[in-house]
């Protein structure tokens, strides 16, 4: 079974994000360096990605506020995510930032970084050196590493290369990643994190509520593209999403579907983006929102009181 289709989901997501950025849904000056401009997507896609990006962002902000400058971020299946550069621009200081994806994907990311001064500059500010291999890049507090999340020993070794500290409060981010991994590998991954990290917050954006016609059709479409959703059983509903953390020794978990997440975003912002593209009807968007969720799990006590309307 090939991992290619799963890697291709990064292209899809990145292109969609760039399209939405182009239309003004949110600002991201760095994504054009990684992804070419594509034809316009349907308005539902743009709104869906807006909700995803802004929803995850709220939890990132909450985490950074609580964790302060010793914070560490590990972005699993990061693809062409530009969070590091955007946080840098905002003057946010972290002790460490690690991105992990298939080596094929990180190779392309490293290549793009190498070729673009604007990207290199931001990761290379102090006079530290930049260590570059075909698939990995280490520069100051930024690390992009190629690894297979199903291989825990490889992952552990690579994280050590990235100077990850198990003592620092750590944010794990995963956007539609775990669903492509077999259950026992996911359990091992989450269990391993729980055994090593003292204080952590895991933010997982993924499908949910899949046990209906819409879910069936979505699964069929994704399978037709070669994406076998090995971890789909955890996406049955919000409870199963949370159970994934609890059963792997995480202290606690909460989950919200994207309807809740979207409508908790500031009203002024929602009104702004709703004017960008007129939606002729709401059915499709509501269905999309109901079938995706953000689930958070935590280790330690620092993040136990997290809510989806995080401080701005």
């Amino acid at each position, binding site marked *: 079974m090939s991992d290619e289709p799963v890697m291709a989901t990064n292209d*899809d*997501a990145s292109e969609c994000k760039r399209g939405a950025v182009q239309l003004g849904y949110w600002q991201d000056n760095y994504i054009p360096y990684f992804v070419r401009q594509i*034809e316009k997507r349907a308005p539902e896609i743009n709104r869906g990605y807006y909700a995803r990006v802004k929803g995850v962002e709220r939890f990132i902000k909450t985490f950074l506020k609580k964790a302060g400058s010793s914070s560490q971020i590990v972005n699993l299946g990061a693809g062409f995510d530009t969070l590091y550069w955007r946080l840098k621009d905002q003057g946010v200081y972290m002790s460490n930032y690690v991105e992990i994806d298939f080596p094929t994907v990180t190779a392309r990311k490293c290549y793009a970084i190498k070729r673009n001064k604007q990207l290199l500059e931001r990761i290379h500010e102090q006079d530290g050196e930049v260590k570059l291999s075909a698939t990995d890049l280490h520069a100051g507090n930024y690390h992009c590493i190629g690894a297979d999340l199903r291989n825990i020993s490889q992952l552990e070794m690579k994280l050590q290369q990235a100077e990850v500290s198990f003592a620092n409060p750590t944010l794990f981010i995963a956007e*539609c990643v775990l669903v492509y991994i077999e259950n026992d590998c996911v359990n091992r991954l989450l269990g391993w994190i729980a055994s090593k990290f003292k204080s952590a917050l895991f933010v997982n954006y993924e499908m949910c509520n899949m046990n209906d016609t*819409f879910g069936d059709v979505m699964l069929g*479409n*994704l399978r037709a*593209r070669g994406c076998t959703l090995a971890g789909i059983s955890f996406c049955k509903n919000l409870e199963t999403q949370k159970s994934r953390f609890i059963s792997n020794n995480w202290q606690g978990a909460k989950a919200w579907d994207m309807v809740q997440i979207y409508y908790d975003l500031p009203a002024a912002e929602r009104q702004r983006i709703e004017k960008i593209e007129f939606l002729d009807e709401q059915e499709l968007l509501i269905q999309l929102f109901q079938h995706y969720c953000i689930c958070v799990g935590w280790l330690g006590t620092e993040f136990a009181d997290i809510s989806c309307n995080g401080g701005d």
Partner: protein
Amino acid sequence: MNSEVKENCVMSQENVDAGERLKSEANEYFKKQNYNAAIELYSKAIEANPTVAIYYGNRSFAYLKTECFGYALADASKAIELDKSYVKGFYRRAAAHMSLGKFKEALKDYEYVTKVRPNDKDAKTKYTECNKIVKKLAFEKAISVEDTKKNIASTINLDAMTIENEYTGPELEDGKVTLQFMKELMELYKNQGKLHRKYAYKILLDVKAYFMKQPSLIDVEIGSENKFTVCGDIHGQFYDLMNIFSLNGLPSETNPYLFNGDFVDRGSFSVECIFTLFGFKLLFPDYFFMSRGNHESATMNQMYGFDGEVKAKYTAQMAELFTEVYNWLPLAHCLNKRVLVMHGGLFTRDDVTLGEIGKIDRNRQPPEDGPMCELLWSDPQPQNGRAPSKRGVGCQFGPDVTKKFLELNKLDYIIRSHEVKNNGYEVAHDGKCITVFSAPNYCDTMGNQGAFITLKGKDMEPKFTTYEAVAHPNVKPMAYAHSLLSLMC
């Protein structure tokens, strides 16, 4: 297509001769109006000898004939770059600019020609004409209020479009649609072929002329023993449209159909759908009906894929012609004076009559409010009264509104579409407001069934047929920017 000019290269006599030969050959094809063949040969001439302005100039002219105005412009510019003394180059560039609507730019080039050739009468004429247009546009812009009505239809020159020998698709017989043509057309489309633009334009021009003569409300008579079928939204789902015909029979004098709007957008085969429907309209004008939906409008088409699809398969000019044609689609149909059919729904006012609907001046983009807007956008609601539409356009109307409207206009019930339904249809307002939606698994995403309504003239009782989606070819993802198959992954 464009070859790179090798600067300062010395042409071998061989290449020079080859170029001239190819050009002459191309000119012959041009004279016979076989422009595509001419283009090919000019291109070969350019390959042999890329330093000759005339080759680019002639190819530019051939591109103009085939409406490839962008290429025509590029070639004309290249010709000028290679040889500023080649005055025809400026002519060609001006013509390309004119076709692209860039009259100011065209004027500059015409002006240059008149300066360089002060005794050239033709140049002077063209300059004067172009100048008139530029001045006229400036004047119109200064006084314009809204909706300046272009007439693309009058600029289409069918005679200039030639059918290449390689074209194997269906052909109109004497410019007319026949059943044979329609059968061949549907076969062509099932195999993802393309109708020649000459016939595509002809269909659009003829159907526009037909609709222009129709009132905004069409009265349909159904004989007491006769069957009539009403279909809802199709949304570019061509293979599901073919499934409807295989379930319910092809349209004919004895098997009349009404398609209730939203023929295009969202699905990947909108072009195929609309030409099939327009073809049947021309074939059976008194037995095949089409009503305007909210997606038969320019803004919707630009956002939900139809515009992109037409531009990819044909030209921007055709996309504009579609806008003109859609403006003339009737807004509602009244069956046997008992059942009113419209795409959206009813009104914010209580006293709207059939007479008023028939008199709506519809040749325009749907307005943001008023009866024409509401016909295309409104939705029924379960509770009595009215409410602002959740869509932000039109209104929501309750069972009491429907009842009053039917009583006022002596009707039995209304049929409308516009909303996706799990079972393809829904009966609301105590049987007085029926929704029918004919696009199953809408957007490859919703998993809904599609449905159509059949009724007999004598009792006008609706019977529902539901069906699942059928398979369709997977076009290149996001080909026309509307597919939701990308979802969020």
